[in-house]
């Protein structure tokens, strides 16, 4: 590894991110960073999170200073072998800066474009990243969308073809949720795979998306390479019904924010912009009805209608369950007492949105299972 110089750059999280503020360095100059380690905390207008090292080595230089606001793609730090010389690093930095062009903030739909596919149930929006490797499909939870995986798209895309879709009733997809059942959503998933020619995929589901992925895997074990269930529904009856209800019915920032704060271990992660983004989605005609239909079907009376944990042992494929210790939506205890061949990972310092609060760890676990 000596001699190789690696840039740590400002990532692009989500469709609209253009810049972020450097909050705090997690690895000091001279400190060692392994691939997947959190290097620096940054804060976008939507969310605060850590930038991960993509390469292992010594963090040789902080280019960005705390409180700097830098555009997507900007050079933050340099990781290199301990033996790289200062002049080599200077040259690397100079070279990078000379060729760096910040993205044009006025261009519309800056960054990663999404695509749509027209299925029998309606239009589905999705994001595809990565060119080679096994297919990984990311399935978001109730009220979420493909941006719930914004810290996962890029890290997985290095070695996989990553799809993240918006389920019916969510994001940029059709508002038609049918009867809102897990089976309907699972059917959408199989239609989606068929339409895009995906023969087999590692499924990663979060929350309700976990229950959908599980339902899909039970119905189509042949199409499922592995299953990662994060903060997953479908493993027990309990759920915070007030969250579901509040999320469905809140129209105003002040009403919605307390509910969104329950999603994270650290409520300060809920920025005004994140709340605004959820509201923009919820304000669209049909969304509230769609959510109410799904909630009525899956979480009637504040309980989960479908508990599938007893069927886990039918699955003859790799399954792992990840939960945040501080999950206030679905009790982390649902991850306990599962069949022995199901790997269970409890993540400390994370709430329900484990893949956002502990993205590095979750991304590593997915990579580990998906190979």
């Amino acid at each position, binding site marked *: 590894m000596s001699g190789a110089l690696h840039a740590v750059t400002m990532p692009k999280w989500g469709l609209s991110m253009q810049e972020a503020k450097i909050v705090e360095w997690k690895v000091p100059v001279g400190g060692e960073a392994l691939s997947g380690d959190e290097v620096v905390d940054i804060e976008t207008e939507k969310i605060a999170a850590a930038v991960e090292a993509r390469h292992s080595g010594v963090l040789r230089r902080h280019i960005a200073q705390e409180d700097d606001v830098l555009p997507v793609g900007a050079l933050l730090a340099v990781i290199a072998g301990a033996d790289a010389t200062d002049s080599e690093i200077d040259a690397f930095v100079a070279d990078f800066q000379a060729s760096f062009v910040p993205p044009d903030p006025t261009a*519309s739909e800056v960054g990663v474009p999404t695509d749509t596919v027209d299925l029998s149930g309606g239009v589905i929006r999705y994001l595809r990243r990565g060119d080679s490797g096994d297919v990984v499909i990311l399935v978001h939870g109730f009220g979420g969308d493909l941006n719930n995986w914004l810290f996962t798209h890029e890290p997985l895309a290095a070695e996989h073809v990553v799809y993240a879709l918006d389920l019916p009733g969510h994001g940029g997809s059709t508002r038609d949720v049918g009867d809102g059942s897990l089976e309907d959503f699972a059917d959408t998933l199989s239609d989606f795979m068929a339409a895009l020619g995906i023969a087999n995929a590692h499924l990663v589901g979060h929350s309700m998306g976990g229950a959908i992925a599980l339902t899909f895997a039970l119905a189509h074990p042949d199409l499922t390479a592995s299953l990662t269930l994060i903060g997953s529904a479908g493993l027990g009856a309990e759920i915070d019904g007030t969250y579901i209800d509040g999320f469905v019915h809140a129209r*105003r*920032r*002040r009403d919605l924010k307390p509910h969104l704060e329950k999603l994270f271990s650290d409520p300060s992660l809920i920025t*005004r912009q994140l709340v605004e983004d959820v509201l*923009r989605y919820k*304000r*669209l*005609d049909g969304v509230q009805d769609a959510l109410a239909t799904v909630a009525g079907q899956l979480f009637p009376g504040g309980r989960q209608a479908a508990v599938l944990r007893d069927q886990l042992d039918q699955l003859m494929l790799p399954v792992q369950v990840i939960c945040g210790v501080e999950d206030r939506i679905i009790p982390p205890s649902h991850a306990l007492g599962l069949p022995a061949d199901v790997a269970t990972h409890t993540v400390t310092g994370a709430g329900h949105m484990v893949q956002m609060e502990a993205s590095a760890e979750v991304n590593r676990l997915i990579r580990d299972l998906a190979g």
Partner: protein
Amino acid sequence: MGIKTFQQAISEALALEMERDERVIVMGEDIVGGSGADGEMDAWGGPLGVTKGLWGKFGDRVLDTPITESAFIGAAIGAATTGLRPVVELMFIDFMGVCFDQIFNQAAKFRYMFGGKAETPVVIRTMFGAGLRAAAQHSQCLYPLFTHIPGLKVVVPSTPYDAKGLLIEAIRDNDPVIFCEHKLLYTQEGEVPDEAYTIPFGEAAVVREGEDLTIVTLGRMVHRAVEAAEALAGSGIDCEIVDLRTTSPMDEDAILESVENTGRLVVVDEANPRCNIATDISALVAQSAFDALKAPIRMVTAPHSPVPFSDALEDLYIPTAASIEAAARELAEYRS
């Protein structure tokens, strides 16, 4: 989703609602244009073309009116109490003078006078604001007058996204709504979903977060405030900008929350200074967040004069980013 103008956003909102609900009709002076004449129909689509194309899609539900504001604004109000959901255009807000009775004595009062038994779901769209060299009778910011009247709701959007969502909300609302469109915002662009969506009234938008100073404003002045805030940021003055979006109901919590955080308040209002939104908010903050204030409140408004015609004068009349910036600097440097 796409980039659309303020004007397109409004047109889209009208079309979507007319599509969705047959009770929605649109009426006003020359909102079609060409009625009864020998040439083309839909010749204007409103003086600035905002409603162009609706007549082709919805025919008789898009009505040109005679230039008789009392009759047709009153008719829209009467129709609203008897089964329609009219969106009626008062071409310039200045023309309220010839139909105000219909608005404030009739529409605004029905529900209360009739003991809660009436609903008047009418939207009065109207164009306001200086900057077009349109002089004293076509340039005013009269939303404070409507805001004063219990029974009316008053909307003053600043962006295409807000315009569409607030207009759809207004059409679906069961109270009379005065929807004020600044004439210099029609070409403003921004991201606007293609679908229908609603933004609730009484929820201000914090368009910029900041720690040092709060700027509360609305309409076109939001953009001037943003400009000022950017300049101030260069001097290390971090402004929070609260865009009211609606003046009735008004999001008092958002104002107070922000002022409690920053301790300094500049209110920017394009209206004349007496009894306007700026004075209203100043009173609110003085009354409810006095202890949080680290400096006096500053109001940046038009002067107490009619809107002048000459560009040399009109440019002085309208609050500018520079005047906002100056007020903010004064507060930032204030030492009691």
